[in-house]
């Protein structure tokens, strides 16, 4: 055996060994996709407009306060759409003062003057882009935290889509879609706001004191009155628009019981939140504080004394609701609401059926191919089968190393790899037969067969790799799985059909001087 040949044999053994190590035992090392394992697959869209709206409203409120402080009397300050707000009726005499006061807003907004002392502020385009991106990132991180709190093993939360506002959520092994969706989807936007009027059973009754108008710095929120022992009724409250604290100021939230032994959520605030909260509660003792969750007032306790950093949310919750609410509050509010674009649930039996049938079919197919190769190519068939086995081992090993998952289309890629593997060997063997028929020696025929076909294989594999690359680039989940499998399969096959198979031939021939070849 030549030194060169020994090194080549060692290289083959080393690579195959490393790949075997990566896939044994297969039930632990080979990662299965959702379609095989069962679970929930969701695609959501982050309504990034919500985040823009939040910023625009906050700026609108700030400008209003500043103008009041500076003594500028204007007709009105209101937000027009998620990225614009308008100030109307600025008196000509106070125009300069207005411009000076509102200058702060111009850090983020472009000012444009209209007729009759009106000004329109439009959010700067780069801020729009940034806020949208931030909203998606924040939503992803929030959902990741929630999913982890749920105790799902190996979840996937990833950004996707051409517009960049979609999130893919995969929860293997989860079958209760509704619960999972509720946890992911609840905005859990908590705000604590001072009550100015109410609660009242109707909007009209609530606004009587203010002549049917909602003052500019206030808003009406709906709520449900759930005093113990009475039927819950819908009520309305008039509250300050600017919140005292929000969910962002929370440090922790946990299930607890209120004074009537009903399920409730207790929360603690972080330093910043505690500072704001204790100041506001000290200034407003004996007034009511509305606890608003996702735009709905849950309760409105009276402030009895200064509170520093603790509070409780009550309001007719069930035990399950309290647990879910603590979970979502703790993991933070979503910066924007979500809509669902796609939902797939694969029950565990359905996935197991697919695996069983997929493996069964692959084995039957493999057995047929192996029998054919042995019948047709005899001993050389053994060579082809070893090369094919190595091909599959390297493919699985490579997928395991990069952490790729096995999906149904992945199995399709697997079968295509088998097909290409067999084809490569057939090409080489047929060529060797041709060379043998032309009365060349065994060794020379083998050499010619491999070197002639190498270019053909390079061409066929390159074209297939081109398709696979585009598939990966443009495809979504399952198609990507197919492209990944195919790419690794092609590369592994080029190695096994030319290098491994040839090394095997030469290993056999190095022992004896062959006159004939079993092919």
């Amino acid at each position, binding site marked *: 055996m030549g030194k060169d040949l020994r090194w080549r044999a060692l290289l083959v053994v080393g690579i195959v060994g490393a790949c075997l190590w990566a896939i044994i035992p297969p039930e632990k090392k080979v990662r299965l996709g959702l379609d095989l394992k069962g679970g929930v697959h969701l695609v959501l869209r982050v309504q990034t407009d919500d985040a823009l709206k939040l910023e625009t409203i906050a700026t609108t409120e700030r400008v209003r306060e500043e103008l009041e402080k500076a003594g500028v009397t204007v007709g009105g300050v209101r937000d027009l759409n998620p990225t614009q707000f308008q100030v109307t009726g600025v008196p000509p005499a106070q125009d300069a003062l207005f411009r000076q006061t509102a200058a702060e807003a111009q850090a983020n907004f472009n000012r444009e003057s209209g007729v009759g002392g009106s000004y329109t502020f439009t959010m700067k385009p780069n801020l729009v882009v940034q806020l949208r991106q931030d909203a998606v990132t924040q939503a992803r991180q929030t959902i990741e935290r929630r999913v982890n709190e749920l105790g799902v093993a190996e979840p996937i939360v990833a950004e996707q889509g051409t517009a960049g506002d979609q999130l893919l959520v995969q929860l293997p092994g989860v079958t209760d879609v509704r619960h999972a969706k509720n946890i992911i989807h609840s905005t859990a936007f908590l705000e604590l706001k001072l009550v100015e009027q109410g609660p009242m059973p109707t909007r009209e009754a609530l606004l009587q004191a203010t002549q049917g108008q909602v003052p500019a710095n206030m808003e009406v929120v709906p709520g449900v009155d759930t005093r113990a022992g009475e039927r819950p009724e819908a009520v309305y409250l008039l509250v300050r628009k600017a919140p005292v604290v929000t969910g962002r100021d929370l440090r922790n939230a946990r299930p607890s019981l209120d004074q009537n032994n009903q399920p409730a959520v207790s929360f603690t605030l972080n330093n910043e939140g505690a500072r704001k909260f204790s100041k506001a509660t000290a200034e407003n003792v004996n007034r009511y504080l509305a606890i608003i969750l996702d735009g709905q007032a849950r309760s409105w306790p009276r402030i009895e004394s200064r509170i520093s950093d603790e509070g409780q949310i009550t309001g007719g919750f069930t035990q399950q609701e309290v647990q879910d609410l603590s979970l979502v509050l703790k993991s933070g509010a979503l910066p924007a609401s979500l809509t669902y674009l796609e939902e797939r649930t694969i029950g565990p039996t359905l996935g197991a059926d697919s695996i069983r049938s997929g493996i069964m079919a*692959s084995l039957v197919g493999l057995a047929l191919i192996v029998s054919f190769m042995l019948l047709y190519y005899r001993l050389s068939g053994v060579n082809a089968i070893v090369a094919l086995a190595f091909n599959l081992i390297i493919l699985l090993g490579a997928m395991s190393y990069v952490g790729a998952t096995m999906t149904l289309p992945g199995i399709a890629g697997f079968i295509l790899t088998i097909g290409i593997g067999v*084809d490569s060997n057939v090409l080489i063997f047929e060529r060797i037969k041709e060379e043998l028929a032309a009365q060349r020696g065994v060794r020379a025929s083998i050499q010619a067969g491999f070197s002639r076909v190498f270019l053909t294989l390079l061409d066929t594999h390159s074209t297939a790799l081109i398709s696979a690359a585009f598939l990966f680039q443009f495809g979504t989940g399952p198609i990507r799985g197919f492209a990944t499998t195919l790419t690794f399969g092609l590369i592994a096959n080029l190695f096994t059909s030319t290098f491994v198979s040839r090394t095997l031939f030469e290993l056999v021939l190095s022992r004896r001087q062959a006159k004939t070849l079993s092919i």
Partner: protein
Amino acid sequence: MQIFKSPNYNFVGYRWHALTLSSLVILAGLVAVWVKGLPLGVEFSGGSIVIVQFDQVPAIDRVRSAVGRVFPGGGQNIVVQSYGSPELRQIMIRVPQVGVESGTGLSDAADAVEKSLADAALGRFTVEGREIVGPVVGQDLTKKGIWATALSLTGILIYITARFQFSFAVGAIVATIHDLLVMMTFLVLFRYDLSLNVIAALLTITGYSVNDTVVIFDRVRENLRGMRKDDLSTIVNVAVNQTLGRTVITAGTALLSVVALFLFGGEVLRAFSFTMIVGIVSGTYSTVFIAAAIVTFWRRRKPVRVPLGTGPVTQATRSPQTARTKAKTPRSPRAV
């Protein structure tokens, strides 16, 4: 063992028959699409699929009428059929997308299906799987699928042009598009939905068909160097015959594995393996008859330029057909 002992069939001679046959099949497919519409899977059309497993399978009609009751104008657009092998006792229900994208509204239709089954007292059942796709996803997927296919075909066109020549590339691409159209025809005629798995099969065949074609082209390129006196039709025909053994064995083994997949692969892979079977037959046929024919039409009888340095590595050529003309080959091959 040898399937063909130096075969010499006149494949190129049958190119007109082949083109007629292909045109008829594709025309039938187009008519079928025009009459019945393209059967889109839920991934593309949007909608909901619910797969339920009953303790005791009720009659399909009872399930259909139960579901039809909750969907206005239902019945026509609702698909109810048994799913998988009978012992699994599974039924698949597909309803079109209702309502718009909003909050949790996406799953309303699927929820309504489940509720209607429960209300109709059809016996105990469990929901085995749900697949709900909003309209946005389908549009996205269609756009991406078309781009991926178009770009990969362009990529292959460029590669083959670089490695062989433009007429070869056109032949390969036309053969591949031919296979895609034939597969579509059979999908429509046999009422298989165009699902993601079917798309995977279509793409697999794209790769397979190009692969098959490249092997023959490779031989044509090699023969062009040795058979300078023969016209292109002869050269192509010799190449097809030389690689015939390989073509048949490869197609045969590939068919073995997909037929196994069709028979034992279960419901999920049925449409996939069906598409593959059609595609392998069509891909093999189109390589031999369509791709080769296009090349001969492109430059009939005119000598073909061989790019330098793209021939086989070894200069000595002893295969029967090339040996015949070896003596006449000029010492230093120059492009003509």
